[in-house]
């Protein structure tokens, strides 16, 4: 957006998603039944969509460098377990919050470290991480709580601050920070550079491994906030079942936002709008009275349709680009 750094493809996708979001909001407004307030729908949107956007920003960062992280939901589960165990042992809220953030960050860094040192593709390392961290979450809960029966209850309102009262604000602050960073920071451009060509980075004397690690570091921070909000909204944390399938929903939002899944191009802004778009679709479907079964299928179809339409319109341009 600054000095044309976002090229026309991404700008087009962003306008498209903006228009789509407004259209969906209009539709929700029309579908709204007597007695429900539209302002309430808007007010709730931020907190509801916050975990998706924050985890989406994490995913966008690692996809920028040409990696991917399929273990995000399991990492959040570990963060949830750590949080729950500390709550169970009556630790003060700030320690529990910190543990939640730290767990997510450490595991994200660990993913980056494994990919970097084992030289195994990120998709494989994190695919293995998916069940591994899920198991870890259960082990942590089981070891930390004497008679752990599958879920950890958190009743005290003091532990629900970030998720229930500040989620919208945390989201807003993170979005602003991410957009400013994207517009003026150098690091995201280095991520994109590595996503374009690791070899080129090496030949230029940049350190591709370090760049990869920095993306997982930033992703860990975003993921920490996502975990914090996701976990502190719950009365009962179920480490074994929470957010199953969440990672693909996030990849959907990222790709919908115009980020190339193979790395090297994309934008935080697109991811944010993509996440809202998916959220408003599910809301619109709910208000239209569609069943949950339909909602899942329609969400998938929409991702395909939006991206397919975008590609179809510009296939000719792409063809010419390839010839050039």
């Amino acid at each position, binding site marked *: 957006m600054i000095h044309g750094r976002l090229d026309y493809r991404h700008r087009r996708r962003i306008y498209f998603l903006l228009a789509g979001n407004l259209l969906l909001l209009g539709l929700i407004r029309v579908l709204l039944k007597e007695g429900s307030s539209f302002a309430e729908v808007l007010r709730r949107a931020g907190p509801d969509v916050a975990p998706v956007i924050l985890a989406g920003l994490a995913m966008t960062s690692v996809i920028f460098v040409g990696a991917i992280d399929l273990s995000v939901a399991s990492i959040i589960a570990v963060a949830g377990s750590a949080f729950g165990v500390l709550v169970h042992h009556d630790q003060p809220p700030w320690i529990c919050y910190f543990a939640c953030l730290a767990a997510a960050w450490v595991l994200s860094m660990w993913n980056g470290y494994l990919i970097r040192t084992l030289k195994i593709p990120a998709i494989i390392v994190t695919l293995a991480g998916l069940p591994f961290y899920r198991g870890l979450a259960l082990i942590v809960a089981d070891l930390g709580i004497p008679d752990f029966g599958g879920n950890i209850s958190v009743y005290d309102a003091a532990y629900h601050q970030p998720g229930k009262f500040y989620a919208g604000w945390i989201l807003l602050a993170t979005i602003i920070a991410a957009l400013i960073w994207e517009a003026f920071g150098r690091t995201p451009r280095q991520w994109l550079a590595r996503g*374009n*060509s690791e070899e*080129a980075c090496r030949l230029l*004397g940049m350190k591709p491994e370090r760049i990869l690690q920095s993306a997982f570091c930033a992703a860990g921070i975003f993921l920490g906030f996502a975990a914090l909000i996701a976990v502190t909204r719950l009365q009962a944390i179920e480490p074994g079942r929470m957010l199953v399938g969440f990672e693909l929903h996030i990849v959907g939002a990222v790709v919908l936002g115009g980020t190339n899944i193979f790395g090297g191009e994309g934008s935080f802004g697109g991811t944010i709008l993509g996440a809202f778009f998916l959220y408003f679709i599910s809301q619109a479907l709910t208000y239209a009275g569609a069943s949950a079964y339909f909602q899942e299928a329609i969400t998938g179809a929409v991702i395909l349709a939006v991206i397919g339409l975008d590609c179809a319109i510009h296939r000719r341009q792409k063809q010419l*680009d390839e010839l050039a």
Partner: protein
Amino acid sequence: MARALLQLDGVEKAFGGVQALKQTDLEVDEGEVVGLIGENGAGKSTLVKLISGVHQPDRGTIYWLGKRLRVMSPHHATQAGIATIHQELAFFGTLSVAENLLMAESWPRTFWGGTDWRALFHEARNRLSHFDLKIDPEKRFDSLSSAEKQEVAIARALSQDARLLILDEPTASLSEQEVSRLFDHLKRLRNARVAIIYVSHRLDELKQLSDRVVVLRDGECVASYRTQETDVNRMVRDMVGRPLEQVYPRGRTTAPGRPVLELEAATRRPLFHDVSFTLRTGEIVGLAGLVGAGRSELARAIFGLYPITSGQMLLFGKGWAPRGADEAVRAGLVYIPEERKRQGLVMDHSVRDAISIGISDRLTRWGIIPPKRELERVQAAMGRYGIRARSPDDPIGTLSGGNQQKTLIARWLDRAPQVIILDEPTRGVDIGAKAEIHRLIDELAQQGKAILLISSDLPEILGMSDRLLVMYDGTVVSELTGERMTQENVLLAASGMSLNTSSPIHQ
């Protein structure tokens, strides 16, 4: 007296069990242009990578300005003043030109810490204008032409006060005109006392540009002489280790036969328009022109990758409007693309897979390819086309460029096609393999195949073709035959200038 800038003393490097470089000495003086030649696999790229810090030598010493230098990384080499432009351009396609130029340096910042984009683009514009380049630094790098990309590479390499510039095959994807622009830049650098190591397969270029030529063969430095005191034949002899005739083969004796491919005002704007010509059996027609003139685009349309929008094409006398490449292959028309790495081959596949994929439908019995039959056919093809690999199961990526190209040709030719379109068949191929490919093309014409040859290598296209069509700005502007087939005429026509001696096909 110029002093030695770079000195290599007994440098060695092995990869796995393969000795890529044996006991090599090299000296480069200030302001000197050293041409580095050798067949593919002779060790040129290894030598370049040792000097530029990508690899470290196993043995031997590198001296820089008389002092011992250990280049541990590309960054280190750049700092010392050694700039390298690698064969595969190291760029970030989706980022802007400015970011590509300055990615490895520190960026200007605003007072509150963010990137100062305005200053960044300004800096990039300055660097580009230093080389008289009028490229918009805000443009996406992908959208530049090959020549512009090359120029940005030079601007980047030299932006940090480099004293030695290494270019590895810089002209492989440039047209003649773009090459001469590159040479202007290089000559200016030489005058500014920058030393240049220039790796190339094109000996005529080295003749023009270099002060001294160093020949590598099988990882050893076998000869070094002043360019003025030598001739192309001697360079070739030293490179291959045996005398090699530089003449283009012409075994075909019969006159061209019946027409097999006819185009009448074939048009697909903006790629090409109003192209008409006839291709007959047993003839080689050259399609010359600058990069971007529409040659490959035309070839791809004939091959059915996209339809023409007006005009007509005839194949074997019947209307030809293929819906896809498979139809073309079945009809007996094959296209061997210019960028073999991107368009033709999967680098991890074995030679066997790469060849048999072209004939698999003919080998298949009940949906299964009989391994024995496949191997026989593949080995036969490897023998016939002189593909040098240790075994058919070697990955394509480990073969030299020439052998990759031969594999690609073998894939299709086993189907016995009647019309063959070859797009830059010898680009990036060493001189020995080049001669073999030329002989192969000639043999095919002898067998009565019709061949459309696209090449930016002027001597090659002049030497191989029976007739020459020259394209400019999307259309054929001139047809050259017999004595009118000269470098000058091709260059004039290809740059859109009128030719007195030629007969334009289109007014």
